[in-house]
């Protein structure tokens, strides 16, 4: 069993495990005498049967008598979720996409036995005339990326501590405990310029400095793994793909502020992340990297998982603390800030998962190294979750300051099905949308705020011409209204009122005055709500009104939904392909369809209640909405 009692033990373990990485990281292994297959074992790929694929691959490898030459195991998310499951072959550096269980035999026979790459399973780049690409380094999706927080995802097996150590893990913690005073650690973090990745963008070094300065022996270190923004999944991928980096980051933070106890607040909806993190905690504790007297340095730290139970507001730090204490997760007003008075009234720092994943890298390579990337006021790299109507859905990590256009069109591969780009929503339910005219914006904290949106956790939801922006705004209000804790009136009543007005607009009962009302209400709520949830809830409405005013006007004046989404504003027609079967007529709840058997039927739109029943009944798909 692995035991690390002092700094020398870590050096020894590193020397012992490092050769594991040779095939994966060193370029000069072209003899192919040995090979390694890495298969994504993240939530996304697992649901496309990647674990079964792994088992079948192992069986085929054994059957082919290649057991001594080839190993296969899981790794964390490669980021290219759109084309999962992904299998990466080392040292060849070949990247297979959309690999099915049926493909296992061919991979073993053709690639592993006969050294012939299977072109069929390679990624075909549409931008290069569908040319098959073997190495991910040649793919546009990866070319502009730079992985810091995600550096081990897709490289190591997250279920084994030996792999993390082989990749240099726990060396940053050792360095801090052996050579740095807590204030030196804080100083290094300040030099790095790292800002919190959980949404607010508060400088991490300064947060730690405040907590470190508080008197008293009891302080807490909390990791916020609640990842509430629907459509963002970077924290999940880090927890699943590199859980030890979070433990190491938390231990370093605890050392810097003088804490010996930590909590990870993790959402119950992420069972795989919980399982991987718990396993990593158990391994670290067993090895002596958590617990009393770590590395024999005199520093002690241990941590515990706490579950979030499906309340978005618990991602807000004060609510999160109440939830860890075992109560209802209702926010409290600030000040006092948690760094002064947090868990059970003791100084507490709360950092996001991605923030913490950067910490070991920063301490190993230096704050100045991290600060050499990114923009003037937003240093380093940031992970973005690309989702929605974009070709390459997935996780990307890029230097701050990159243009939105590069993210959407080069890395993201443009819009799905050749449709027209309409907007991208950043910052989740607290954020706003950025329209086509502002695609040149360089992404960082301050530029996004200037554009009327915000960074949030880094979710980017791409919308095309088929999305209705009023409907999207209503979707977000639906979310915040449901998630409001109800403690303060502006949020509880105000956001509900906004939602009502938006519903009226999408159902054809809106007026121009409603648009004025929306603006006024939004301003009042922003100024008076107690916590970030309520304060930012009107942002999606304000920002869609600002950029898509015409679309709102079309809804309230012309009673028309230009994107043809709002069903109440559409008319139903039966086209000539109707065979007159009468099924629609029988199912119509208001009997507004007429027509004789075997003749084209007709819908009376004055009576139609737009229930959509006829469309789903029609065997010939003859009914259309316009």
């Amino acid at each position, binding site marked *: 069993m692995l035991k690390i009692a002092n700094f020398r033990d870590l050096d020894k373990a590193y020397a012992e495990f490092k050769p594991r990485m040779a095939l994966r990281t060193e370029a000069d292994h072209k003899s192919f005498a040995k090979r390694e297959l890495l298969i994504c074992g993240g939530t996304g790929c697992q649901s496309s049967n990647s674990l079964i694929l792994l088992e079948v691959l192992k069986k085929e490898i054994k059957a082919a008598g290649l057991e001594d030459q080839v190993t296969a195991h899981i790794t964390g998310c490669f980021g290219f979720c759109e084309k999962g499951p992904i299998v990466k072959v080392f040292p060849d550096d070949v990247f297979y996409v959309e690999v099915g269980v049926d493909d296992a035999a061919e991979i073993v026979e053709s690639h592993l036995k006969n050294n012939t790459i299977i072109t069929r399973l390679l990624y075909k780049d549409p931008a290069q005339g569908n040319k098959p690409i073997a190495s991910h380094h040649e793919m546009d999706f990866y070319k502009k990326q730079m992985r810091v927080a995600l550096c081990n995802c897709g490289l190591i097996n997250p279920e084994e501590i030996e792999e993390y150590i082989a990749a240099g893990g726990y060396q940053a913690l050792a360095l801090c405990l052996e050579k740095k005073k807590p204030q030196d650690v804080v100083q290094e973090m300040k030099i790095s310029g790292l800002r919190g990745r959980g949404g607010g963008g508060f400088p991490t070094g300064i947060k730690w400095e405040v907590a470190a300065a508080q008197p008293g022996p009891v302080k807490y270190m909390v990791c916020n793994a609640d990842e509430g923004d629907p459509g963002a999944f970077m924290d999940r991928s880090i927890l699943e793909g590199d859980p030890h980096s979070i433990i190491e980051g938390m231990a370093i933070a605890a050392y810097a502020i003088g804490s010996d106890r930590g909590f990870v607040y993790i959402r119950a909806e992420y069972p795989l992340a919980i399982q991987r993190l718990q396993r990593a905690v158990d391994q670290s504790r067993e090895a002596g990297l958590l617990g009393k007297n770590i590395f024999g340095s005199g520093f002690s730290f241990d941590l515990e998982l706490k579950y979030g139970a499906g*309340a978005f507001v618990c991602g807000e730090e004060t609510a999160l603390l109440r939830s860890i*204490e075992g109560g209802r997760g209702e926010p409290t007003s600030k000040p006092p800030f948690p760094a002064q008075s947090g868990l059970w009234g003791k100084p507490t720092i709360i950092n996001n998962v991605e923030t913490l994943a950067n910490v070991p890298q920063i301490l190993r390579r230096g704050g100045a190294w991290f600060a050499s990337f990114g923009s003037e006021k937003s240093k380093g790299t940031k992970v973005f979750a690309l*989702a929605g109507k974009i070709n390459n859905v997935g996780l990307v990590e890029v230097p701050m300051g990159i243009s939105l256009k590069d993210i959407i069109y080069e890395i993201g591969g443009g819009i799905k099905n050749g449709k027209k780009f309409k907007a991208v929503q950043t910052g989740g339910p607290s954020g706003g949308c950025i329209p086509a005219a502002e695609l040149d914006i360089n992404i960082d904290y301050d530029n996004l705020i200037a554009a009327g949106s915000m960074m949030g956790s880094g979710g980017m939801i791409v919308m095309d011409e088929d999305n209705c922006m009023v409907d999207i705004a209503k979707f977000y209000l639906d979310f915040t209204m449901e998630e409001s804790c109800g403690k303060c009136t502006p949020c509880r009543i105000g956001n509900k009122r906004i939602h009502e007005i938006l519903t009226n607009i999408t159902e054809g009962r809106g007026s121009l005055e409603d648009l004025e009302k929306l603006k006024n209400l939004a301003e009042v709520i922003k100024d008076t709500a107690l916590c970030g949830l309520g304060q930012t809830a009107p942002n999606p409405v304000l920002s869609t009104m600002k950029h898509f005013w015409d679309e709102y006007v079309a809804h309230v004046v012309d009673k028309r939904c230009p994107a043809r989404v709002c069903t109440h504003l559409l008319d139903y027609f039966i086209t000539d392909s109707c065979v007159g079967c009468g099924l629609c007529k029988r199912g119509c709840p208001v009997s507004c369809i007429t027509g004789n058997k075997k003749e084209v039927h007709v819908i009376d739109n004055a009576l139609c209640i737009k229930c959509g029943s006829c469309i789903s009944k029609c065997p010939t798909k003859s009914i259309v909405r316009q």
Partner: protein
Amino acid sequence: MAEDNCQCGESGFKKLAEYIRQFPDKKTALIKVLYEAQHIFGFLSKDVMLFVADKLDVPAAKISGVVSFYSYFTTTPKGRTQIKCCMGTACFVRGAEKIISRFEEKLNIKRGETGADLEYSLDSLRCVGACGLAPVVLVNDQVFGKLEAADVDTILANNQG
């Protein structure tokens, strides 16, 4: 003593008591204990909540306050097949509404409801983190992705068989 409705044969209450014993700090363990209790019993009945109140030495009123606050917890039994449609943003912009409506229509229950025969329950949830597969549906926690309305019929047909 309350009726023991654990489906696994072994006494659910015994299992739960066993689980609770590992926590030195009982009061802060409440959410984890409720989470475990829901896994054992499928839902949090009044009896289960009273049992937890007793074991953790917290007022029953506090427990019901916590249970009602968190959407993960349910106080009514769920169907044998639990269908959860992701209504997170990524799934929403890729047509999740059509999927859940199709389920409503086929199962003849609304979202949030359980059929009277306890065969199916239909819920919406927010982002399971598989946004790359949007729109996503969980059927008894198995993930189905990249769905179209027609796939709903297939899922239900396969589930019957």
